[in-house]
């Protein structure tokens, strides 16, 4: 593992290998091609590999992270951590990163509001771990290599695409020249400026926010609690907002809200960053600036996340401002959502119609994330005197009135989307199950293995209950299903009634909750959950 050098990080560089297509030996065809090795593309490749599905990943770069050591995403939500656990590299994130659960909203020196996300958390993973995005990508690459069925092609830039009903053809540029790659399915994970999207002429509704921010990633000697602190009006930043959060290697992410007309170049000069830090931490603080950079908020949303044989995941499909860490985390969930579906379809265990549910589930999730982050943005950058007046009223009341603390909005932390209205859901359910530990085995464990399978947990009425054996014909019928009885202890944790069956999807979302279940009810829930009706 590399150490942080005074100038930044030493990131791994991956070898470019001349693609077989350019040596005349490649078939020029693959079942799944993934464009972009960022958080979303790599999670997709890793998830598919964990199910035994091979893919070719094409990335224009040959390292992790974006140009230089800028770390964009730092907060990884419980759902992402659960996915990393299922994929088998969570321990590396845990060991390298900073686990936290306490957040505070401050006004000057005073705490207006404090929350602890660990309260009520029932997952094997903590609510959040902070770690630089490139470490997550790095560990993903290591894990993908370990799993050994993915071809990672670095310095392979996709410049165009065309497709018909049978497949798509990607044009790829490499240091050795150009080649074409046919793929049955293409997953575009090339980020917000996706060329695939542009070359298909697909629109994306978008806007660039006026609000300007400047990040300083910095190490300093002063001891501070490992908590997420946010100021709505920080006296040391001209009464504008500030974020302060620790990530791996003892590096703090401090994010300063700027005046709307700030020149980004000027704001990110090291002297300016140093002055801001001294204003905040005192004139004598010793520090190393690891990275400084200004950015503006951006919102983008595609009309449909599927276009024929091409699926769009992560920032290629949707971009939102970083409040609540909803960007990378939702891209990771896009990948998980699509991976199990694609795996079932490729193995002939579900019809292609199942793949349409990717857009039906993940687009509403993106719409919700955009709405939630817009509200935070509006709280943090009031547009009129009236909006500012109400914000002041909220902060004034928050000191003594708990109800007003809930109106303080410095970002609502990322939570999994509820797939209630999804075509795959039976009845009034669709929420994500926490990664509960049942009889000392986490649910994520029970969902591992070749291919993708559902989990039917059944709750015996008494010791003689034959519900389990009445369900077992379903596995012989070929449904991708594991059936398991729950113990009396686990029953409580799951909130199950006697005679009930929970149908859990490969992504830990609930497909159905069936009270007084029988085989036919479970069969029909499975039919829905695999896109057959």
């Amino acid at each position: 593992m590399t150490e942080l050098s005074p100038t930044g990080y030493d990131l791994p560089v991956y070898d470019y290998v001349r693609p077989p297509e350019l040596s005349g030996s490649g078939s020029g065809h693959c079942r799944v091609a993934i464009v972009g090795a960022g958080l979303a593309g790599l999670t997709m490749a890793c998830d598919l590999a964990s199910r035994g599905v091979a893919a070719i990943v094409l990335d224009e770069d040959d390292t992790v992270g974006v140009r230089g050591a800028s770390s964009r995403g730092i907060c990884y939500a419980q759902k992402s951590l659960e996915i990393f656990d299922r994929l088998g590299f969570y321990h590396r994130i845990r060991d390298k990163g900073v686990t936290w659960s306490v957040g505070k909203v401050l006004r000057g020196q005073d705490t207006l509001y404090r929350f602890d996300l660990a309260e009520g958390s029932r997952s094997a993973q903590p609510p959040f771990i902070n770690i630089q995005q490139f470490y997550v990508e790095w560990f993903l690459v290591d894990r993908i290599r370990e799993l050994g069925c993915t071809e990672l092609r670095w310095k392979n830039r996709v410049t165009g695409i065309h497709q018909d009903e049978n497949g798509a053809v990607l044009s790829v540029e490499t240091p050795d020249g150009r080649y074409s790659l046919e793929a049955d399915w293409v997953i575009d994970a090339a980020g917000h400026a996706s060329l695939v999207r542009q070359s298909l002429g697909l629109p994306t509704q978008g806007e660039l926010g006026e609000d300007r921010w400047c990040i300083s990633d910095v190490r300093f000697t002063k001891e501070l609690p490992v908590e997420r602190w946010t100021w709505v009006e920080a006296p040391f930043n001209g009464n504008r907002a500030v974020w302060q959060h620790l990530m791996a290697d003892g590096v703090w992410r401090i994010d300063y809200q700027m005046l709307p007309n700030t020149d980004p170049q000027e704001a990110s000069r090291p002297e300016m960053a140093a002055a801001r830090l001294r204003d905040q931490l005192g004139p004598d603080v010793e520090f190393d600036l690891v990275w400084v950079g200004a950015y503006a908020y951006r919102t983008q949303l595609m009309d449909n996340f599927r276009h024929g044989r091409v699926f769009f995941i992560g920032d290629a499909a949707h971009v939102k401002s970083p409040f609540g860490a909803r960007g990378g985390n939702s891209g990771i969930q896009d990948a998980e959502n699509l991976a199990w579906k694609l795996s079932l379809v490729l193995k002939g265990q579900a019809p292609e119609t199942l793949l349409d549910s990717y857009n039906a589930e993940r687009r509403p999730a993106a719409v919700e994330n955009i709405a939630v982050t817009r509200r935070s943005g509006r709280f943090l950058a009031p547009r009129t005197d009236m909006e500012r007046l109400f914000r002041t009223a909220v902060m004034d009341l928050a000191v003594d009135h708990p109800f007003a603390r809930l109106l303080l909005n410095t970002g609502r932390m990322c939570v999994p989307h509820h797939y209630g209205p999804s075509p795959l859901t039976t009845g009034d359910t669709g929420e994500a199950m926490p990664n509960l530990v049942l009889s000392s085995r986490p649910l994520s464990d029970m969902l591992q293995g070749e291919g993708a399978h559902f989990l039917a947990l059944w709750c015996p009425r008494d010791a003689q209950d034959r519900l389990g054996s009445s369900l077992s014909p379903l596995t012989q019928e070929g449904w991708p299903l594991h059936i398991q009885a729950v113990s009396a202890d686990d029953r409580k944790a799951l909130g199950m009634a006697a005679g009930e069956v929970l149908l859990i999807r490969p992504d830990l979302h609930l497909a159905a909750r069936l009270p007084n279940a029988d085989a036919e009810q479970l069969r029909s829930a499975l039919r829905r959950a695999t896109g057959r009706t």
Partner: protein
Amino acid sequence: MMHITPNIPDPDAFYAALLDTHRGLSATESQALNARLVLLLANQIGDQAVLMSCLQTARNTGATHRRNDP
């Protein structure tokens, strides 16, 4: 449902108290007080549908009622 029938026990006393609460304040301070008051009252109501009808009704009454919906 938003109350449309009168619901304040002593209307005149309430109205007098409302005005008294603003006594001696500048227009800006009064606006700030009103904002706090709206939030406090909203929490007392605590019913999303009622709150939405109150917001609508306030917007669609008086000098703003001819403007486009927000």
